[in-house]
């Protein structure tokens, strides 16, 4: 009796669509990536209410040592020596875009007078929308 020769299948993984998947992921990351304009390391205060901050908002950050950095939302934040410089920067930004949103990113331990100076400068620069950057407060935070 003549036996049929067994056909051998070479094992292979279909990789034709791998590049499609990869490029899809690339497009996703390219669209969602946001480059931080301010990299100041702070411990943010915690709040229960938190709202989404519009993209490309201007930043004023205060680190634990009280140093102030400002960014117009496009450029990386730069150190300023006094709150008066916040006023001149904010006034310049508001002159270009009166609806510009400002974010105050301050360490929770910074004394109120420092934050007060910054908020006062923003008020004088006619800034209307300010967000106080915060972390989520949870039940365990008390």
């Amino acid at each position, binding site marked *: 009796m003549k036996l049929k020769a067994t056909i051998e299948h070479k094992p292979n993984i279909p990789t034709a669509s791998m590049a499609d998947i990869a490029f899809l992921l690339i497009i996703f990351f390219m669209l969602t990536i946001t480059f931080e304009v301010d990299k100041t390391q702070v411990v943010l205060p915690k*709040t229960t209410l938190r709202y989404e901050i519009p993209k490309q908002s201007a930043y004023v950050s205060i680190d634990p040592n009280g140093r102030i950095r400002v960014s117009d939302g496009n450029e990386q934040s730069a150190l300023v020596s006094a709150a008066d410089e916040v006023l001149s920067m904010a006034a310049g930004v508001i002159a270009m875009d009166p609806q510009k949103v400002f974010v105050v990113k301050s360490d929770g331990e910074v004394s109120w007078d420092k934050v007060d100076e910054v908020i006062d400068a923003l008020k004088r620069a006619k*800034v209307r929308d300010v967000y*106080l950057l*915060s972390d989520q407060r949870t039940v365990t935070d008390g």
Partner: protein
Amino acid sequence: MKLDRDRPDDEIPTSSMADIAFLLIVFFMITTTFTATRGLDFALPEDDDDPPVVEKEESVLIEILPTGELIVDQDPMQLHEIIPYLKPKLERNPKKPVIIRPDTATPYKYMVQVYDELRQGEDHGLAEPINISVPTQREIQSFWY
């Protein structure tokens, strides 16, 4: 006569495309940072040269000491006691201004804590949002004294 030409393949080599794509994915995954982009909105009133005069007696004053202790209308109070204290006053006058006045040495987090609590007034049964005011030191010196 038949010529035996050695014709090269007219294919674009795509075998390394997946490698390049995954390299880019890894780059974006590493550089993407999920940052805290949420916070409390803090609408600033217009810097009016002639602001409406609010008598101190008509408003509720919340002072925050550097230790985080709260003094509401001269009485020490806990954070969770503020809304029940304000409730009857705001039912009579929903527009009653509530002024937060931290000490200059008070850590910023205590001010945010009080502001966050007052913003949740409606969740605690108040009919309208609380009219919160956080005057700056310059405003206090200009208009209060």
